[in-house]
């Protein structure tokens, strides 16, 4: 009953998605691959591997599972755990070189933040290209050998948003439920229902709760840098909380039994849950930059003289920020505001024509980005930004 086991694993791993789920790094044969079959590579996050295998049903291909510590593609690439080294490792240890005559490797596009293709080529002779963002686009990509704009673009559709709601609702309701069960068992069910309602509301209605992601404005007070987890405008969270409190009031009105103590108690508890569930919006959605406070908001600068229009930035940008002027052989940053600061374009630019610039105008050396991977988490940021005291951001991406 493989499908039962598969479905069970899917549910458990979605509920506990905040944890790494490593699977053995290995070579998987999909269908009956021949010596010219495509070679794809992914992370060793079990959920991702199973989804890629589902997407590849009916294909003949080799799938390499790289040792990325059981973390998904975008998170591990941004966190420095899915780099050229992990790619080299699986190429050398899987025996794939004995299986195929070619040396073309298809990487997931979101690994572009971490994997330096040049190093892979130098050390193994394999030429890496970046395939589509989503596994479900692999059959079309393999059939045409062409990546459309759609395949390049990271989106946040309803199903993915609900998955993120489960990711947060499950641990919050499970931990809170267990604690309440020890002393106040009758509160367990209402608490669990509240956690799931709030999580589903926050992520389900996400696109309508304040438009695009809000980032800290220049006038944001300095202390907000300590609220590193939260959207500084906090409007989204407030909307969901107020809606919930309004729902509570409506319920009391309907029952015609106003209990002000219960209302205050549940109102505070729901605020706590809203803050918990909304704690890591930057990591749970593909809409925010890696940092939320103005100190960590970098912008991309393009050195037009150095650019030769080889379009790697266009190829790897998950937000379609770039266009290529094919006549002048130059890239243009058409949608700078859409940038989520993933750093893939900086890492992959063959001419080193792109760099991040801090709000104070400091240009972050490209080698620093390549070495520490983008992320700019915690102490790594101290080395590269002048606002050392502000550098305690969290912001990798879980949803990829």
């Amino acid at each position, binding site marked *: 009953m493989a499908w039962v086991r598969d479905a069970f694993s899917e549910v458990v791993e979605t509920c506990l998605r905040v944890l790494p789920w490593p699977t053995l790094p290995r070579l998987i044969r999909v269908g009956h691959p021949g010596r010219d079959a495509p070679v794809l590579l992914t992370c060793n996050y079990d959920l991702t591997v199973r989804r890629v295998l589902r997407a590849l049903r009916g294909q003949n291909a080799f799938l390499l599972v790289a040792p990325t510590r059981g973390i998904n593609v975008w998170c591990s690439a941004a966190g*420095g755990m899915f780099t050229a080294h992990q790619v080299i490792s699986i190429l050398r240890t899987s025996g794939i070189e004995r299986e195929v005559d070619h040396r073309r490797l298809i990487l997931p596009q979101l690994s572009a933040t971490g994997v330096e293709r040049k190093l892979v080529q130098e050390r193994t002779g394999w030429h890496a290209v970046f395939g589509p963002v989503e596994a479900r686009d692999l059959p079309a990509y393999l059939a045409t050998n062409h990546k459309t704009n759609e395949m390049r673009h990271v989106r946040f559709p309803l199903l993915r948003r609900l998955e993120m709601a489960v990711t947060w609702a499950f641990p919050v309701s499970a931990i809170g439920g267990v604690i309440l069960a020890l002393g106040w068992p009758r509160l367990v069910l209402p608490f669990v229902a509240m956690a799931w309602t709030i999580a589903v509301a926050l992520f389900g209605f996400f696109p309508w709760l304040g438009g695009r992601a809000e980032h800290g404005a220049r006038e944001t007070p300095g202390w907000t840098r300590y609220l590193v987890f939260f959207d500084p405008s906090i409007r989204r969270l407030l909307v969901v909380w107020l809606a919930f409190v309004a729902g509570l009031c409506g319920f009391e009105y309907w029952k015609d039994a106003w209990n002000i103590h219960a209302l205050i108690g549940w109102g505070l508890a729901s605020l706590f849950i809203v803050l918990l569930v909304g704690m890591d919006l930057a990591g749970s959605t593909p809409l925010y930059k890696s940092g939320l406070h103005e100190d960590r908001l970098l912008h991309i600068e393009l050195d037009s003289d150095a650019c030769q229009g080889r379009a790697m930035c266009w190829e790897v940008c998950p937000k379609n920020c770039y266009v290529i002027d094919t006549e002048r052989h130059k890239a243009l940053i058409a949608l700078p505001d859409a940038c989520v600061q993933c750093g893939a374009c900086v890492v992959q630019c063959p001419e080193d024509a792109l760099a991040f610039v801090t709000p104070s105008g400091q240009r972050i050396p490209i080698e620093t980005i390549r070495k520490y991977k983008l992320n700019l*988490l915690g102490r790594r940021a101290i080395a590269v930004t002048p606002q050392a005291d502000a550098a305690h951001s*969290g912001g990798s991406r879980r949803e990829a």
Partner: protein
Amino acid sequence: MRILESAPERYDFGIRLLSLGRINSVYGRVSQLARGPDTLDLGCGTGNLARRLAARGHRVTGVDLSPEMLDVARLKAPPGAALNWVQAGAVELVDCFPPASFDTIASVLMFSELSPAERAETLRQCHRLLRAGGQLLIADEVRAGTFGRRALQTMLRAPLAAITYALTQTSTHAVRGLEEEIAAAGFSLLRRESNRLGDFTLLEAERKEARDGVGA
């Protein structure tokens, strides 16, 4: 997510906590056994073993995958010590060093981080990098031999591992079959020292001359 953030400066604390402070004696014992003088510290982390080896007069090269770990190692290195740091994966040693570059290769708590295929490839590369009669020293967490000991190992370790991971995002994994893998890569086992529970082992092996298909 912050929990995914690698934490090099907390790594040492995490490993000390997980090993209940015994890790320092392991570094001490490995450096005592290491013959050198050209020594590779494979998976050097923040350089705890490398510094001890350098203090004993070895010319030490520390290799680690993590640039953050190496940054800490460089900061902690005493000025003028014969220490050299290289960022590379365990299966990229042959890209960084010519054959027969070292007299000793030492590795503490690194092999348990690797998959079985990575361990086999790493050991093959170690064989290539060692000079004739070169010494391999591996100290690592291993799977205890009997069911009872494994159960005890799990019970003792689980709460400690959870606390350590929560505080430092650091953990280790018990490896099995390490002695067989070392032998298969063309080494002769010279010494095995284990703790009472049998879940931590120090292995000393010597490079045998390359045979056809083994360690070449």
